[in-house]
């Protein structure tokens, strides 16, 4: 049976992360370039940055706890989520 590394799952996530990063920088750029200069605009930019960092740190914290070197086979994907499967 062919086995796959769990790390492959990180590829689509990485793409989504890159997309979110691009959106984050584009939004900051637009505010920096076109918004009216005011403390409120600075607060909005700060809120964008803090919220993005919080999400990235929380997800990163979870991802760091998982052993991505582990391999799995296609047969392992059969969903058996009942209580007996709890680790």
């Amino acid at each position, binding site marked *: 049976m062919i086995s796959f590394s769990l790390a492959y799952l990180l590829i689509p996530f990485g793409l989504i992360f890159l997309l979110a990063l691009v*959106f984050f920088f584009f939004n900051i750029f637009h505010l920096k370039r*076109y918004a009216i*200069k005011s403390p409120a605009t600075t607060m909005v930019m700060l809120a964008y940055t803090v919220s*993005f960092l919080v999400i990235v740190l929380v*997800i990163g914290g979870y991802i760091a706890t*998982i052993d991505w070197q582990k391999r*799995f086979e296609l047969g392992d994907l059969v969903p058996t*989520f009942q209580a007996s499967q709890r680790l």
Partner: protein
Amino acid sequence: MICLDKLPNSQPQETVQISLRRHSIDLFRIFFFTVLMLIVPVIILVLMRLGDVHVLNHPIWGPASVLVLGGYLLIIHALTITEITDYWLDVWIVTNERIINAEQHGLFNRLVSEVHLEQVQDITSETKGFLETFLTYGDVYVQTAAERERFRFKNVDNPDDVKITISQLVTTCKNTHNHSPRAISPGIGAPATSQHHDANVKL
């Protein structure tokens, strides 16, 4: 950033009279849909737990679920900040000389136009619907002499007051330019509009 004290192509005596954004109900709508989208995975997880399905403990679907949830959060974040930026960059600035209309449509479509107050022919305010009437917000349309689309101030607070203020500014501007086209008096527009100005300024 755009500085209200130094607008692009501003004239020496030009001062900002009103700076408008869309009503904060639009911002509330964005946050409401964000919260709704955030609740969806929580509901799914609760339902799974109630059904004795422990996907997070599965050796493969567990990590996959964490990544899906993480990606979902990142997508929600990207959509929300894009919507907020769209809201934040829709600005209508009325000075004692001109009206500047700046609208952002998504991330890559921005429209900035301006019209001199002398060119304004007709101003209309429109409040329709229960929520707009209850929260006193609506649209203001500014029709110019030029053959072009009229300006639309979308979902601004107190549209009737905005209309009155702009009408007064237009009248003052037209009178001033008819009597002395070159010289602009220092206090132009200010005495006639000060009450409305205070009520409508949203920076």
